[in-house]
């Protein structure tokens, strides 16, 4: 049995400094859910496929089931809980609600963050850019058409400001 001394992980999550001592094998998603009680980030396939666990780490989307928490030490993290401001939904959240971009909602937290990343890179994304941008997020309910529609709607809402 190796020496599994706990490791202190300090991060800023949704603008707030958070820390906890964890076993090194703790995955970032479990760190967020179990240590910080941020259960908006979901565990789907747990094999780096489905993207339900997507969060933004240092400005980039990552699959938080495929990062050990100590690797994120010192990082800046945005989870789905960080999207709404002062009780107002983010325009991406508004668009998903308005366009029926979700049914069961399990994949939604990840899709919202992948959409945020996509629209940061391409404020007016082409159909191809949308498809490629969310290719790492699997939805089992909607068949994607309403998700594409939600993303297009969010893009124009955010462009208008």
């Amino acid at each position, binding site marked *: 049995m190796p020496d599994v001394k706990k490791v202190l992980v300090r991060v800023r999550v949704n603008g707030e400094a958070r820390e906890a001592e964890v076993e*090194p*094998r703790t995955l970032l998603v479990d760190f967020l859910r179990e240590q910080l009680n941020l259960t908006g980030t979901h565990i789907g396939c*747990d*094999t780096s496929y489905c993207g339900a666990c997507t969060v933004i780490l240092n400005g980039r989307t*990552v699959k938080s089931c495929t990062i050990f928490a100590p690797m994120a030490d010192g990082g800046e993290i945005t989870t789905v809980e960080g999207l709404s401001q002062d009780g107002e939904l983010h325009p991406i959240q508004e668009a998903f609600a308005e366009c029926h971009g979700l049914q069961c909602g399990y994949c939604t937290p990840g899709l919202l963050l992948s959409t945020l990343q996509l629209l940061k890179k391409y404020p007016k994304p082409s159909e191809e850019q949308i*498809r*490629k941008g969310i*290719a790492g997020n699997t939805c089992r309910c909607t068949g994607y058409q309403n998700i594409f529609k939600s993303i297009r709607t969010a893009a124009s809402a955010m462009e208008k400001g």
Partner: protein
Amino acid sequence: MYAAPFSYHRAASLAEAVKLLQELGEDARLIAGGQSLIPLMKMRMTRPTALIDINFIPGLNEIQSPKGELRFGALSRHSDIENSTVAAEIPLIHDCAAGIADVQVRNQGTIGGSLAEADPSGDWVTALLALETTVDCFGPAGQRTVTLESFIKDAFTTDLAHDEVVTGVHVKKPPKSSGGAHVAFKRSAPVYPTVSAAVQLTLEGKELCKEARIVLGCVGLTAIRAKEAEGELRGKPLNEKNVQAAAEAARAAADPQSDMRGSAEYKRLMIATMVKRAIRIAARRATGEHVEAGHEYAGR
């Protein structure tokens, strides 16, 4: 799913990473992006007792264009390369970087980790064997540089000693009138390709193929340099007959296994198709045309 327990060590420098590898012994592993290692650890297919995290070593993620070559620090993420205008100077490299898995995996996975992993279905080895590529390794005796051909020994096996770290990758810029393409077919974005092919050509005039490199991915224990296929093009006009002959030779050079991605026969047919496609795109690019290419998958 949890990996088997391990101790965690954060290296602040290359020298410290090497020292930790020596102290912690053969069951210690380096971790960079972790996009291959962590899934394997979670499925308990590998159980390192110690992880040495190299993500915090400064200066390992730079992409530079010194004279005549491109240099990628080992911690360059696939998405750094995808978004780099410097790297876009060699279109085949952009094809590869932009097609690996999905956005999230590209944001985290590294070029150095991918080469050191040496997965026969991985994209980088296939792409970079089509170019003149060398790998920098740092160990107790200092830095050494090895060609990618001699770095890759077998499936999941490299020339890297236990106490060595990949620090960077050098790619020689191709001469004028050159073009290349890396194409792949996969069932969906996050998975490894079923087959992939990388082709780099140098033309004389519009038609004559002066130099050719053809590499096949996912159809053997390592990426395969299809030298007979190259011979069907080298010094010859790039007409339908010669391209077809090269594709046939590539099919003969492939040594695929049947698995969940497809039967061996299917992969042989697919590799011929992908090689043909890559040759045509490479030839168009060699004449200065802008052509989009990369990984194809359902839903794109």
